[in-house]
């Protein structure tokens, strides 16, 4: 059903209306629609409607060489592309039975955390915008751009880094990079007060966010909610710690939690996580110079690269939650099957539909953004 063909329908004698939000609602990342049954301004039921940006990534990947897919995977989640590359590479490495050199693992960790910082900044802005506050949105996007400058510096691309490769990363860090990173972290920390004043302790925002889209821990677990959304329900669970990958077991960081499970709790978890990421990055800045060695384990030349038969389920903690790649190889030069398990496939469909029920129409956008749903993960 295309929106241009859609007209709000008044159903029979009741006060119920069916309306369509999206697919370009400002409160929604990407092209995604939501069909709501309203009774007055109270949502009776909601139905997620995907398909506006279906590019058939999983199908495409089956038709491309192992390495060519690296140019595809980051596109599945624009705000937080790095975990996609890393998860795919890790899955392929597991099938091949190789490991990235330790230096590459540190660099990957750095990339993931930088990406998390960028993604959270983006989400702050987006979330604020759904409550009608646009300044944090501009700030979030502007500050994220500074992170993108660093991505450009060390990966060669601003958004789609295409920096990972099974076996490691493609390039050494440029000279002075860690100094630049350190300066950026200083700057971001200096911005904390500004964000707190404008957003996190702004009474208008606090009032709007509290109680909005609240989940209990039981509900969250039943719905397979992960990431900050789950941690906002009081469960200190993080793939980085509980199913460690790369060098996370060598890093010190806390897992921030909240218990209320609502939109405000979720954004507070993200705020704290941003600073945990800065903490991790500072440790990396300190440790990385002493970690010498190669950044790539050699793989056969990609044009004739047959990955041996096997399968692997690689999980990472993206800014949105548990991101997993299930990769199957039949021994050929292309993946036999790649399944992308994005955290939003849970958050943006069943959880969103569940939370929308009974909410007021004006809160729907905030609920969706507070879940940090990334529709391309549903629509891959």
């Amino acid at each position: 059903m295309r929106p241009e063909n859609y007209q709000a329908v008044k159903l029979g004698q009741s006060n119920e209306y069916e309306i369509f939000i999206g697919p370009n609602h400002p409160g929604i990342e990407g092209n995604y629609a939501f069909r709501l049954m309203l009774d007055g301004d109270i949502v009776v039921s909601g139905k997620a409607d995907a398909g506006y940006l279906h590019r058939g990534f999983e199908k495409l990947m089956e038709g491309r060489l192992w390495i060519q897919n690296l140019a595809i995977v980051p596109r599945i989640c624009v705000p937080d592309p790095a975990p996609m590359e890393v998860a795919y590479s890790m899955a392929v490495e597991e099938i091949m039975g190789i490991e990235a050199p330790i230096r590459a693992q540190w660099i990957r960790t750095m990339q993931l955390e930088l990406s998390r910082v960028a993604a959270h900044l983006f989400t702050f802005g987006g979330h604020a915008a759904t409550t009608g506050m646009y300044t944090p949105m501009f700030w979030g996007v502007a500050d994220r751009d500074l992170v993108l400058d660093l991505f450009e510096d060390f990966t060669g691309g601003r958004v789609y880094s295409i920096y990972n490769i099974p076996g490691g990363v493609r390039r050494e860090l440029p000279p002075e990079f860690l100094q630049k990173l350190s300066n950026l972290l200083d700057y971001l920390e200096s911005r904390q007060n500004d964000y707190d004043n404008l957003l996190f302790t702004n009474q208008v925002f606090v009032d709007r966010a509290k109680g909005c889209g609240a989940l209990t821990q039981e509900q969250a677990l039943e719905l397979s909610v992960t990431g900050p959304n789950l941690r906002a329900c009081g469960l200190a669970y993080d793939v980085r710690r509980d199913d460690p990958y790369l060098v996370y077991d060598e890093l010190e960081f806390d897992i921030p939690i909240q218990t209320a499970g609502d939109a405000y709790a979720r954004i507070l978890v993200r705020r704290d996580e941003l600073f945990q990421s800065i903490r991790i990055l500072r440790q990396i800045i300190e440790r990385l110079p002493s970690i010498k060695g190669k950044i790539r384990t050699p793989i056969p030349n990609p044009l004739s690269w047959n990955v041996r038969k096997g399968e692997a389920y690689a999980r990472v903690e993206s800014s949105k939650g548990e991101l997993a790649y299930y990769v199957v190889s039949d021994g050929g030069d292309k993946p036999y099957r790649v399944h992308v398990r994005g955290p939003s496939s849970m958050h943006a469909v069943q959880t969103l539909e569940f939370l929308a029920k009974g909410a007021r129409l004006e809160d729907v956008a905030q609920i969706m953004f507070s879940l940090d749903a990334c529709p391309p993960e549903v629509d891959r």
Partner: protein
Amino acid sequence: MKKINYNDKGSILNPLKNLQFYARKPVTEPLGPRPASASYRGFHINDLDKCIGCSSCQKICDNAAITMVEVPSIEEDASKGLRNLRPAIDYGRCCWCALCVDICPTSAIEMTREYVHVCDGDETDSYFIFPKETGIHGDSFEKGWTKTEDSDLLDRARRPMGEMEPEARIDNFDEIVDGFTMEMAIEEASRCVDCGLCEDACPAHMHAPNYIRSIYEGNLEQAVEWMYETNPFSHVCGRVCTHICETACSLGHGEGESDPIAIRWLKRFAMDNVSKTKIKQIARKGKSRKKSGKSIAVVGAGPAGLTAAFDLVKKGHKVTVYESLPKAGGMTRYGIPNYRLPKDRLDQDIEVIQSVGVDIKYNVKVGTDISMAQLQKDNHAVVMAIGMQMGRSTRIPGSDNKMVVKAVDLLRMIPKGDEFNVPKSAVVIGGGNVAMDIARSLARLQKQKYNEVNITVSALEQLGKTFLADDDEVIESKEEGIVILDARGPKQCVIENNKLTGLETVKVISIFDEQGRFAPKYDEENLQFHEADMVVEAIGQMSDVSILGDELTEELEWNRGRIQIDGNGATSVEWLWSAGDMVKGPDVINAVADGHRVADDIDKFLNK
């Protein structure tokens, strides 16, 4: 980090604190593009001179953004591995992943720090660009993403090949090169980018990319199947081929240390590891069940003659091969020493060819035992493939002494087991591979008989510059104790009392002119005498065309001393074809290619 308590209510005044921003300096960014970072993946540039047209960029492109275009003004030379294809890029599809940069075997394609292109709707043609040293807008920009050692997707180093140590090999004729193990072969095969330059370069157009791929996949039988499509002398070529393919290999074009794929050793590996029975089955594939009723005589059972025979038999014709020597193989048997080509391998190639139905008559000398006229009478077509088995002499003073011998004659005696007096010391005149073959063979015989090596090779050509023999041959010869005196011209064989005492040479200052043609300059003062019991001349060979007989010689058209043939090997006489060394000069793979050509043409002729 300041903690925020969930239960805090926040304050309506907090946002007002940000009014302080009015006192801050505004952030301003200049309009217009800023320079991108030093490793930015901007627009492409391509160094057209470095680019060889291998199309690897096109194959790695995940968005089908690269079209190969033919540029007629660019040199195309298959034997050097140069195609006149160059990439053109469709920026409507490109995703700027730079995999094309990272795979380019010659590092020709790179990206700049330029990243802005704006055009109107009716200017979509500007999306399709042909990158040169300058990028999309014809401007030179600083380079962004270029290939680094880390980002290089290709494995540049050849797997090392094991060899017998000099001490172990000098007193015998055992094969020197170890050959690959399965693991090494797969690793080596994995380096191939499948550009096909090797196949273009190979005279027989062997499907090297296909059999390399099969080896990589561990399917050696399939690899051998690919080989037998174009070469029934795969064992021989797996060992002694001149491997033009490796010269053409795109990996060998890379800067710095970048080795071509060891295509020859891979071929050898596959052949060595598939059973003879299986190879016979493979060789029979595609053999016609129908008999054509036509018969063909082939003169000479060398690679050219037997390849032609092999093809013709598979096409249903009856083929008889006449060989003047007791065994088949031609120069591969009677010219190449066993340590380079073990004769059992050659025997197998020939056995496989015979198993398809080729009939070889040994010890029959055409021209003496049976005339060409007779062959013509008895057959529908005749193939001349007698090779170049006669050695040239320098004809310097003293060269008519009986202890001045020709390399090819000696080399023929060794596998035949003919007795001859191994000289205690010998000088070889010549700097080609034949000179090395006889020097190293004599060295082995000397070691066996006298326990010491005393061989000198004297060549006009200069080592490392104009020398004709392969580098490996030179290195290994030196390891085996052979002295190579390069840049020396033979002046005379010194004879005292009718007995050879040695060779006198004169220093060559330079040998070729600017055009690369022979124009030697000598230093007359610089004379040297080399004591020797035997002088071996290894300067060149020719074909014994006298077997054709005067009448046929007169009837045929000639081309600078060789029988004139057309592109298919047909001579000016309707029933006669000629192939191999005698028309093309010495080279096994060329001979094989010739054999195929001739067979195809004869088949066409017979089916007319």
